[in-house]
């Protein structure tokens, strides 16, 4: 008998320009609940994708029951007994429980038709093992609560004779009662000898449920230890780890007038109560975990989503912003996190994307002044150092960092005063990051107001003049650069809902 059901040895996964996971190792024992934590972008998703055969690693070995295996695709991983329940449920709500449990595979009778009696029986057995014999396999899934839908999803996973069940933030959309229910089920599965890799953002859950825990950071293995005797602080320290590096060319800001002030923003289910002020000549950063309501705050200010209540003041004047167009006219620029989905029209050229948000500036009547556009675009390509053969290149062809700079160029063309950068350096390589920081510095020097959302703590500390920490749709803390609490540990503590000093 091997010590581990599933083991990774020296696994490295690279993407063009980025090493997502480096020399990773982890071993999961049969019948244990193994916690996996790390900051956003630490490489947890990459690890899951390697284990489930979505990504094929460049180096290293995957071992199942001590034997080396190669997963060329997700089906092969499943055949080796590795199943995954994702954060978002993959349930077809119109279909009954039984069809959802057996989605993607079938049991046929001797006529080649679906053997429903047997499928119902096996689905019931699986649900009974999970401790939910009360779920009727004929019920439409959509009629079950979210907690029970998740049970169906787990039943789907374990009915494939899973040896290892990966649960990716399974409690993120569950209520308190449902979380308890889920934990009972996880323990039952463990007692049945199934290994569980439990990925979570919530430390309490890890303490309650896990036997061992692995911490990842920057795509690397930091530690694996028994949960017994572990402390909150040690986990956070392991996650945050590194000291501040010199990759942040920060120039200190000259705090100017108040450009943006918002009071008591509320949006049902997302924002509970958000107030803050942002000033010209400084970088104000919003820190917090994914889902803390940072992006939602900015979307609401930009009128991309509707606010339920709250006031917005720009340069001291109360404004009512009804559409993104109106926000732009008020001098707000919003560089969304999802460049490809919301920032760029990938099928269009660099120059078209650059005028996207302010065509008026380049218009004479209905006509576009292409000569001026060409000139201005070339100018921006030069100052922003965008690597592109010409301004006519379609943006699809550019690298992530250069695409980001095209988006920045788009907003510079709007002559905005308030720049909201949502995760401006996500997914771009180190060199390009520094260039993006330099652009931010230039804007600050011109007295513009910069609001950054960042989940990378070094970036938060390296580039900010002031930091606001959010959690659960609320402002948890506001830290000035000069404050004693302007450090990784305290920011993390606030982001995880703890008290600061």
């Amino acid at each position, binding site marked *: 008998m091997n010590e581990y059901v599933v083991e990774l040895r020296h696994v490295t996964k690279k993407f063009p320009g980025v090493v997502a996971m480096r020399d990773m190792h982890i071993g999961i024992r049969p019948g244990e609940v193994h916690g996996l934590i790390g900051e956003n972008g630490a490489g947890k998703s990459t690890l899951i994708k390697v284990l489930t055969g979505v990504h094929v690693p460049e180096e290293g070995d995957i071992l199942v029951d001590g034997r080396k295996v190669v997963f060329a695709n997700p089906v092969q991983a499943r055949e080796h007994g590795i199943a995954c329940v994702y954060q978002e449920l993959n349930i077809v709500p119109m279909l009954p429980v039984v069809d959802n449990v057996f989605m993607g595979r079938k049991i046929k009778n001797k006529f080649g038709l679906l053997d429903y009696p047997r499928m119902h029986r096996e689905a019931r057995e699986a649900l009974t093992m999970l401790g939910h014999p009360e779920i009727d396999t004929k019920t439409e899934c959509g009629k079950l609560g979210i907690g029970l839908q998740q049970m169906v999803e787990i039943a789907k996973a374990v009915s494939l004779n899973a040896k290892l069940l990966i649960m990716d933030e399974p409690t993120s959309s569950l209520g308190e009662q449902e979380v308890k229910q889920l934990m009972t089920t996880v323990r039952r599965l463990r007692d049945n000898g199934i290994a569980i890799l439990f990925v979570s953002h919530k430390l309490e859950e890890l303490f309650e449920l896990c036997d061992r825990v692995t911490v990842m950071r920057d795509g690397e293995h930091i530690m694996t230890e028994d949960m017994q005797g572990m402390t909150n602080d040690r986990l956070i320290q392991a996650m945050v780890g590194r000291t501040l590096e010199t990759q942040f060319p920060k120039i200190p800001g000259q705090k100017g007038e108040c450009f943006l002030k918002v009071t008591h923003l509320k949006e049902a289910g997302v924002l509970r109560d958000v107030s803050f002020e942002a000033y010209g000549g400084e970088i104000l950063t919003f820190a917090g975990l994914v889902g803390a309501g940072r992006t939602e705050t900015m979307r609401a200010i*930009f009128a991309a989503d509707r606010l339920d209540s709250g006031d917005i003041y720009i340069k001291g004047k109360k404004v009512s912003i009804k559409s993104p167009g109106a926000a732009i006219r008020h001098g707000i620029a919003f560089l969304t996190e999802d460049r490809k*989905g919301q*920032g760029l029209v990938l*099928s*269009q050229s660099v120059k078209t994307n650059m005028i996207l948000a302010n065509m008026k500036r380049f218009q004479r009547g209905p006509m576009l002044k292409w000569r001026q556009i060409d000139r201005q675009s070339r100018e921006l390509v030069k100052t922003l150092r965008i690597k592109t053969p010409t301004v006519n290149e379609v943006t699809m062809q550019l690298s*992530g960092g250069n695409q980001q700079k095209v988006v920045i160029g788009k907003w510079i063309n709007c002559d905005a005063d308030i720049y909201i950068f949502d995760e401006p350096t996500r997914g771009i390589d180190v060199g390009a990051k520094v260039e993006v920081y330099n652009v931010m510095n230039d804007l600050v020097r011109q007295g513009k107001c910069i609001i950054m959302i960042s989940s990378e703590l070094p970036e938060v500390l390296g580039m900010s003049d002031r930091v606001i920490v959010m959690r659960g749709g609320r402002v948890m803390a506001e830290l000035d650069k000069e404050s004693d609490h302007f450090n990784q540990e305290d920011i993390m503590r606030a982001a995880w809902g703890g008290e600061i000093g």
Partner: protein
Amino acid sequence: MTSAAITKSKKKTGIGDILMKLGPLMVLTILFIVFSIALPDKFLRVSNLMNILKQTSINCLIGSGMLLALITAGIDLSVGYNTILATCLIGVLMQNFGITNPVILIASAIGISTLAGFLNGTLLTRLHLPHPFVSTLGTKYVFWGIALLITSSKTIGFTNKGIDQVLWIGKQTIFSFGFPVSFLLIVVVYCIFDVFLNRTALGRQIYCVGGNPEAARMSGIRSANVLTTVYTISGLMCGIAGVVLAGRLNTANTASAATYDTDAIAACIIGGASFQGGKGTIWGTLLGALLISAIRNGLNLFSAGNDIQYIVIGSVIIVAVTIDVTRGKIEARARKMATV
């Protein structure tokens, strides 16, 4: 990404791009050669070529509006009967109200179709119907019904009714070799479209709304207004097509719209438009329309009936969509290589 990889991926798609753009032109050329060899003295005669141009006009006009809808990742299924509606209105105004003033007749035809297009756009953007497929499928039947209603389901003849000035556009040829006026109109309209799509702000916005509606919205572009304009222009083009149709057929006939909508879609798709939106050019559409007409014309000269024609045209559409899908895959791969 290394610079070597960048140049490599670019080179690949660069050649692919050119092939895709030249694709319809090459097919058209090959088709011409094949027909010229197979049908000596028949196909490659000036009079026949002029015939092809004449036959293309209606599809070109309708196709230009359809192109706009396709660029926005939409579709306008009502174009055929919108065109018929315009022709029928001319007939009814002439027959039932005795109006023979060409200006009034043409203006009303274009007016009603533009209004119909505006209705399409409004339904889509204000009632938030899920997809223009739904709204324009509905209005297609409505326009058909209205056309039947106002004509009492009867065919109206235009010959010797004193409206020859209206028919002139669709019928007349100029120069010694018989160049059709209707195709001259196409050249003018297509040049305007080229400028509109590439040189005006609204034109660029149409591409951007189609390429990425969310990015367009987050850049402050009012997609609803852009879309409404697109369907209104599509209606306008149907109106002009209706006027040309009057001259081509010499009748207003509610049954003649059979394949106008699908012909227009085919012309656009063959010419490089995509159902995913954000792409397509007016000159590609012209090539697509010419290709369809050339196939029809050539097969006619072979004395192939409607049966064979439909089979061939149908196959061409499928091939065209296959090209569209392949093109999408090539680009998806390029995207994956260029951005991670």
